[in-house]
């Protein structure tokens, strides 16, 4: 009994220490975004000080340049999520419902493409993107992010489709429907949970991407939120409160995803490591 009690105390000490480790820095991020800039490094530091205000958020949300970063990020992520889903569903359908020569090798190649380091691709990418005359456009980032998210999306979608009985699509084909009908009318509607997971994963990757957004775009009209946040470090004389407000606004979609779609998000993020 005694060991059980001390175990419980130990557990709670561990839980709280862990929460401080992961939570305190984030709490400081939020608290700093509500301070006025001269108070950022006030001594002694306080989580909420007398300068509490939302001015930093107002400045960010009324700056057309920063709103443009958000628009760019949302637009690119939305297009990539849709396109990756369509392409991945088609490929997953092929892997899950057909046997054909070369299936295993193509599948292995797609899986192993996840290991290719983005930094290795960076130099030839720049050459290709300039060569295709899409440097500094949405299309450059959309194609790049599709290629980066496809392997994992295909892996996850085919895993999901493998769990769906073949009788489902056979029923459609007996009724005279084509295979494509079977995919579109039966498989896709029943694969919605898997698609949500893939979509959230894809969104997460696009939203956070930094290296290619930095290299393949150059004008502020095309740049995304991560580049926007990073550039605030350089050009301003450190408006810390605005940087923190922009950081929070820039993390908002992911925070919302984690809080409200936790199940799908986790399923999407861990599918590579955990067999579903």
């Amino acid at each position, binding site marked *: 009994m005694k060991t059980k009690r001390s175990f419980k105390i130990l557990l709670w000490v561990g839980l709280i220490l862990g929460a401080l480790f992961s939570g305190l820095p984030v709490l400081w991020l939020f608290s700093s975004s509500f301070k006025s800039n001269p108070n950022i490094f006030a001594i002694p530091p306080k989580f909420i000080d007398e300068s509490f205000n939302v001015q930093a958020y107002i400045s960010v949300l009324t700056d057309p340049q920063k709103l443009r970063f958000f628009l760019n990020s949302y637009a690119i992520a939305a297009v990539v999520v849709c396109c990756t889903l369509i392409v991945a569903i088609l490929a997953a359908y092929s892997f899950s419902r057909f046997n054909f020569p070369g299936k295993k090798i193509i599948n292995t190649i797609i899986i192993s493409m996840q290991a290719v380091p983005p930094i290795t691709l960076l130099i030839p990418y720049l050459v290709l993107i300039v060569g295709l005359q899409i440097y500094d456009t949405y299309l450059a980032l959309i194609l790049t992010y599709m290629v980066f998210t496809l392997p994992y999306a295909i892996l996850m979608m085919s895993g999901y489709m493998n769990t769906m009985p073949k009788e489902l699509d056979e029923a459609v084909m007996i009724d005279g429907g084509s295979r494509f009908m079977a995919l579109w009318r039966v498989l896709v509607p029943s694969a919605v949970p898997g698609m949500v997971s893939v979509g959230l994963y894809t969104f997460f990757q696009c939203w956070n991407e930094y*290296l290619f957004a930095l290299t393949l775009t150059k004008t502020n009209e095309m740049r995304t939120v991560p580049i926007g946040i990073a550039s605030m470090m350089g050009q301003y004389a450190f408006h810390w409160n605005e940087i923190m407000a922009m950081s929070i606004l820039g993390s908002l979609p992911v925070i919302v995803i984690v809080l409200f779609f936790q199940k799908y998000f986790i399923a999407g993020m861990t599918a590579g490591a955990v067999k579903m």
Partner: protein
Amino acid sequence: MEKSTHQNRTARIKGKLEPYFYLLPTVALMALLLFVPIFLVISYSFYDNVIINDNPVWVGFENYATVLGDAIFVKSMKNTAIFVVLNVIFHLLIGMGFALMVNAKSLGPRPKAFFRIIYMLPWMFNATVIAILWKLLLNGSGVINYLLTTFHITEIPLEWLSDRSAALWVLTFINIWAGYPFYMISTLAGLQGIPDSLYESASIDGANGLQKFWHITLPQLRPILISIAMLDFIWTTQNFSLIWLLTAGGPAHATEMMSTYVYKTAFQSYQYSLASAAAVIILIACVILAIFYVRSQTRNDE
């Protein structure tokens, strides 16, 4: 009769081609934006002055010899190795520790959900935000230096990220903080997959908590832990954003990684051939890691 066999044949051919038709968009995209770039970067690494020069000269392995003979690149390989190994170890320990605590039987559903969200917090922020947050925390007049000097752990505030002896460890610490949630979530999913009956029969045999952990939990988690550790090896080796934004490889190459070396050589010194050779070396390292990963995955399947 004639017509129907003909129809059958075209239908058969069509049927045989159908799976390839569904794969076409994937293959086209990956060919253009994965295979072509990989081929290009490998070929660049064997030429001199690519991209800048219209007629690059074939130089064989000379670029590789130059890169591998560059003390800074050797240092970046050493730094990357330290960074990756420490990250994988601590991600694993912290992620698994947090997962085990959250999963403890005596914890009610509400505290469980609460702590799970708190522990996932670092995951909700991307490299840019994490870099800026830690720059704020570690600033000379920031809150960490305030606490350290107030409690006399250090006498003067330290510039953690521009200190040559501290920067690599600080960077490693920040990346550990940023990356453990993935382990925690994967471990939690794995823990839920362990059947209760295993623990029950162990209890009947009189096993204590530690024995149960050692003989049931750990072996059952093994496949998951191995595959996340390998993914982490690959991902951390490729890490660029966080390092670039926090130290950019500095001060005096103290935190130079293979990825920042490639970026600087290409986009600051414009030596694309050397950068390509270094990029191919990273590719080879990651391919070797990936072979181990795919092997462990296919073994799990069987």
